[in-house]
């Protein structure tokens, strides 16, 4: 599944694919078609303020929970979304889009 999502000054095509998972919750990978080069040193604070269940932040990845999903976010904008309920690409895409919005300095 792909969708054009606004980020910064442009629209970026983003993909969601289901990873190996079964049952009512699913695991997904969300991937922008080009690297977003997120600067975690600049966005982590605002992410922490907006995401209540923040787990960890390093220069290389952020880990937090959004809805039921366990999120691993990388500087490219790639995300691993685990335990997405219901296990639908559409839901994973919505979560990915919401996270990009939170990470977008221009929209905050």
């Amino acid at each position: 599944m792909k969708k054009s999502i606004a980020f910064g000054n442009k629209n970026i095509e983003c993909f969601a694919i289901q990873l190996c998972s079964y049952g009512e919750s699913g695991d997904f990978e969300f991937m922008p078609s080009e690297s977003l080069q997120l600067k975690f040193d600049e966005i982590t604070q605002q992410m922490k303020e907006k995401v209540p269940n923040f787990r960890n932040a390093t220069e290389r990845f952020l880990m937090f929970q959004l809805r039921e999903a366990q999120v691993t976010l990388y500087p490219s904008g790639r995300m691993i979304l685990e335990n997405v309920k219901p296990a639908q690409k559409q839901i994973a895409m919505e979560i990915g889009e919401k996270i990009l919005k939170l990470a977008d300095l221009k929209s905050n």
Partner: protein
Amino acid sequence: MSEQNSIRDDFTLIKKGYTYFDNAATSLTPVSVIQRISDYYNCHNGNVSRGAHQLTRNASLYYQDARQKTARFIDAKEDEIIFCRNATEAINLLAQGIDWKAGDNIVTTLVEHHSNYVPWLRVRDRHQVELRIAQPNREGVFDLGDFKKAISDRTKLVTTGQVSNVLGTVNPVREIADLAHNKGAWLLVDAAQSLPHLPIDVDDLGCDFLAGSGHKMLGPTGIGFLFIKKELQYSIQPLAIGGGTIHDVARDRYDLLNSIERFEGGTPHIAGALGLAAAIDYIEKIGWDFICKKDTQLVANLEEGLKKRDYVTIYGPVENSKRVSLVSFNIENCRPHRVASLLDEMGKIMVRSGHHCALPLTKYVLNATAGTVRASLYFYNLSDEIEHFFDIIDFIHTNS
């Protein structure tokens, strides 16, 4: 070391800096295999069989040669090898081709890949055949008594993987074959995971059928094979008939060929078969001594390092394990896909995560509901790569 370096030079993705620990999903492809496929399309691109021009003749000869090499690789005869897409298709060919009778039973195991499990569930449902499932212990290891109990006079087929794609464990196929044959049953071996790691002789294994995939043994995707013992070939119906399978066709009837080609309806994957033959050439050039020695060394390093880390759960036998260079594990408080993506992002290390197409095993035996991380190595991997892998998983544990 120079031998190892020269081997690594044969794999483009290694030269590009990937640490490839996902060999149980698909192995890397040496340049000689890619070259053979390219040569076919560039120099010999004809369809096989019966044409009278030089390109079809060459293609036919190379295809025949590929069948011979594949047969020799497992000590079978040339007319016992059917080329198909992969081990999954090979197993399905058999599942669809056996003349099942209501009341027959099939014996399989809870450790199987879905490809050697789901087709038998379908046979059960379509033909009123009983499916008996041998249950391993919590480490995924079998007691032969489990098979002995399950196999009866009504067992038509016993089917097992030689090597588990999740645990890397090597099953006692020869002993299972004896149990099956004592009751008049046939034995199918899913050798998708064992072919890259172990020299195989179908007579020594005692199997009647054996399924393999080219892409797990350095070959291209889309090519695999099924070994069928010569004397059983007329007991099995082909999966697809049509072009290439026919002795004669009249207005209202057809006669199939008496040769192995009766199982290969339509134009086969000629380039794939040639690529598989090139992969076999490559494996034979490297040699089983080197491959097996390297396998033993790599899995020892991997197991030893994982065992030292108390935050790691290893699946399968931990003590005195007999397995190929493949280990499934989990890191405390970190789900498998997260671990796999972190290894990729931080170390360019490719591992597999999830259930590895073996849900009955991961759910009911390993109790790994979110799946596992699987590191599967091959002879081109290095101990240094394993050390790098450990550095990253230590970091993941500390930071997740």
